[in-house]
């Protein structure tokens, strides 16, 4: 027998390896098994028994041990339902069932609306075993079945969810009174209010119902709580307190009259109950220290926010002012610097110009000092030629070259030396391609 599954298995991940391709990773979790009893029934059990017995013989001790091991699915323990029965209750007349406390009759007063259906059934049975008229007759008591009828009535009401709600709606014994002023002053106030609302919560159509909490509850939880309860959606009804409607067809008017009266009275009680809950909430919230604290905290937070805002604004203004001043200062400084720069560059230019002029004077003077390299008076043509070359060099050289040239020439007195420097310079310019050989008139090589 195998089941087929169409979702595919995964591919083996890259690099997976294991000895013999099998890797034990874990084992069945420690609490992974419960000892239970298989029912010794059917053909498959016979096979199991054959395997399990192995020709062994089991004893009574084995049986007891095995049974102790096995999880018991049949618990019949009614210890949770036992309450003393008082004489007043036992003497009740079943005719007055409307006013009887059904939970008390069944011995469930400590549970009330919290009693489970199973508890109600077990409680009923327990009472039947004790109070059935046949049991009383056997015990020599009178065959009075009044209390037995009370039991039956209580069970009938409590096992019908609709009737049970009607009864629970008016079960005053389940009400929890709000704490008194004196109690509120104690540290128990949260617990006391909590119990009040736990009890009120039984009427809620919506579940879960938020609980009252304590002094550590968050603001959100507390708000949730009040929101929920101020919008409480209650199933509480009051028909249990209806006046009996006459059950005969003769008097239809009377019947209708009672019905109308009942309807109005239910409505009125419902309104009163809503108002009661409102008031309860108002009282509770008014005395709720947490709300006060949250308000203070909120105020403090609000104040802090305002102060923070003001401080921030002030700081921003100051910052802006400082920034403005800094900008103005920077602008002024820049302007001054620019002016200075302008002036200094003008001076430098002028100095450079002067230097060039001066250097040019030096170089021009050099040829004059050397008498234009003539022996005796120089011819105008020779002067012309030398001067033409000097002007050519002066025109082609940049100020630094002129300065260098002037430096070389300064101090020189010997005509040949001067001429040598000039020739060298002219050659340099020719080599640099700035001057053509043909343009040179006096300092030819």
């Amino acid at each position, binding site marked *: 027998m*195998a*089941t*087929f*599954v*169409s*979702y*595919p*298995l*995964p*591919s083996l991940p890259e690099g*997976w390896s*294991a000895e*013999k*391709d*099998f*890797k*034990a990773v*874990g*084992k*069945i*979790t420690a609490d*992974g*098994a*419960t*000892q*239970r*009893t*298989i*029912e*010794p*029934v*059917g*053909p*498959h059990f*016979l096979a*199991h028994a054959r*395997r*399990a017995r192995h020709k062994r*013989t*089991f004893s009574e001790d*084995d049986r007891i041990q*095995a049974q102790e091991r*096995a999880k018991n*699915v049949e618990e019949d323990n009614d210890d949770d339902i036992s309450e003393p029965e008082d004489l007043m209750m036992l003497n009740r007349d079943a005719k007055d069932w409307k006013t009887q406390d059904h939970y008390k009759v069944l011995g469930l007063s400590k549970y009330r609306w919290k009693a489970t*259906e*199973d508890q109600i*059934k077990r409680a009923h049975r327990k009472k039947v*075993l004790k109070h*059935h008229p046949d*049991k009383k007759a*056997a015990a020599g008591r009178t065959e009075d079945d009044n209390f037995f009828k009370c039991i039956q009535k209580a069970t009938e009401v409590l*096992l*019908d969810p609709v009737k049970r709600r009607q009864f629970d709606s008016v079960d005053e014994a389940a009400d929890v009174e709000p704490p008194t002023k004196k109690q509120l002053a104690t540290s128990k106030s949260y617990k006391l209010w909590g119990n009040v609302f736990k009890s009120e919560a039984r009427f809620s159509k919506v579940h879960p119902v938020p609980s009252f909490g304590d002094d550590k509850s968050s603001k959100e939880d507390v708000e949730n709580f009040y929101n929920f309860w*101020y*919008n409480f959606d209650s199933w509480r009804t009051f028909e249990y307190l209806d006046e009996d409607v006459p059950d005969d*067809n003769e008097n239809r008017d009377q019947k209708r009259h009672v019905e109308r009266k009942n309807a109005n009275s239910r*409505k009125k009680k419902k*309104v009163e109950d*809503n108002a009661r809950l*409102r008031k309860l909430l108002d009282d509770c919230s008014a005395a709720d220290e947490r709300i006060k604290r949250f308000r203070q905290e909120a105020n403090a937070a609000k104040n802090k926010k305002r102060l923070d805002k003001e401080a921030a604004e002030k700081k921003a203004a100051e910052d802006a002012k400082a920034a403005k001043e800094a900008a103005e200062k920077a602008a002024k400084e820049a302007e001054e610097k620019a002016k200075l720069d302008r002036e200094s560059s003008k001076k430098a230019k002028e100095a450079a110009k002067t230097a060039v002029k001066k250097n040019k004077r030096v170089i021009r003077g050099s040829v004059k000092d050397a008498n234009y390299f003539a022996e005796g008076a120089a011819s105008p043509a020779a002067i012309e030629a030398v001067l033409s070359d000097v002007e050519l060099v002066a025109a082609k050289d940049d100020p630094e070259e002129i300065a260098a040239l002037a430096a070389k020439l300064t101090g020189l007195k010997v005509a040949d030396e001067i001429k040598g420097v000039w020739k060298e310079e002219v050659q340099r310019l020719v080599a640099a391609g700035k001057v053509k050989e043909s343009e040179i008139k006096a300092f030819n090589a």
Partner: protein
Amino acid sequence: MSETRTGPAPGDRTAIGITFGNSNSSIACTVDDKAEVIANEDGDRQIPTILSYVDGEEYYGQQAKAFLVRNPKNSVAYFRDFLGKEFKSIDPTYNHASVHPQDVDGSVAFTLKDKAGEDEAASTLSVSEISTRFLRRLVTSASEYLGQKVTSAVITIPTNFNDKQKAALVAAAKAADLEVLQLISEPVAVVLAYDARPEAEIVDKIVVVADLGGTRSDVAVVASRGGLYTILATAHDHEFVGAALDKVLINHFAKEFIKKHKIDPRENARSLAKLTAESEATKKALSLGTNASFSVESLAEGIDFQSTINRLRFETVARPVFEGFSRLVESVIKKAGLDVLDVDEVILSGGTAHTPRIASNLGNIFPASTAILSPSTSATAINPSELQARGAALQASLIQEYEAEDIAQSTHAAVTTVPHTTNAIGVISLTESGEEVFVPVVQPETAVPARRTVQVAAPKNGGDVLIKIVEGNTHIKVIKPEPKVQAANGTNSKAAKVEDDNSGEDSDDEFSDEEEEEEKREKAWKIGATLAEAAVRHVKKGAQVEVTINVNADLSVTVTAREVGAKGGVRGTLSA
């Protein structure tokens, strides 16, 4: 061993199955391995568990039931549950219309005239004696039908029968010259009756057996694992039962009668007996038809009474009882730690299970995938009144060849008590979107040792395949409908309702906003701890891989995996 034998030798046995209920009993045998419920000489397959004595003559079954009207003081009914019990712990509620039980030295007895003759004194008979007499009648009927003396039987009992009750039943049977081969649980007999059908497949499933009788309703959640049955939880109820439905009709017709004649027929024992009998008949008729008549001759003070009721009306007046059945079933599932979504099958058993409304109400609780096995919901359902007897007969035929001592050893607690897995164990597969999903192989609550196999598709292109063995758990995913605008902020309708009510206006719409859209619930597997990884190499394209998981008695686990149709594969063991 034959020296110590007290009962008949296996070869000399003629064995049947018996259900011995408070309301009804049945006898069944097997013919060619098929179970068959035997009709007694009156033609009844459901034989009322009643004895009645008229002029020293003993009547049982349907005839005795008819005497409840005329001869209640010499009729005994509803006594099965008193067997093995002390007087102080019995519920005599249902004996009001027949002989009342009485306290004889703490045990239960009935006093009636079982001998002929005006001056014969009445006898006080213990409940054991009454049971013996009744069982003897059942055995006689079965013997007559089979043409040979019935020597032995498997008898069904409620799951909460204690050792004293069991011993008392075995002794009562023995006194009737009947060997009890085995006492088996009623719900398990029911499951067996279904599983023994030739077309039944043995699959792992959770079955809820709701055995709804006349005076008690017993519900059990059964884990059915490879044909082994384990009861996970039970509930026993005495409130929501067949008799409660009768009572609804009794009150309904009584009121009708009062309206007409100003006489309450419930106040006179004989009238009440007639009313009860006819109410039950009417109730049964409404299980088949949608209309039933109610007719009693001389109901009270010589007045004949005739009426009719349709099914709808019945279902309306009996609504609290019907809803009680549903809540009972739900409560047991919860007790078992399960959800309705975990339940694969609901088997309705017992006479009251014929009622269509009970089945349809249960159908509303469970998902559509849960099979509700009852006459009105399933064409292949077995008659719910016959399930227990059939199961008992099947078990009788399985074990009748064993020595009594052998049976005792095989059903010994040391054999039946074994560990059951808490979690499921399975493999990981991939969905279309590549998500890992858990494929259960061994289901939770499986008795060990257990061995289960699955075949899973290999990846599309074959190749090397990863077998990842993990534990798994189910959880219920709740998909909530989009919330409607609720009274979440303090200013809307509900806060204002207080004022509305003050104005005295009609607040009939109070419940109308209750019609919430239903949330969707799904069962999903959660992948738990990894137990092992294994590789199956070189799997062909489009092939299947077979994975077998063996959980051994000591909770060690052996895993084998191989390509279907190929040699080799991989095998490994996890220590316990």
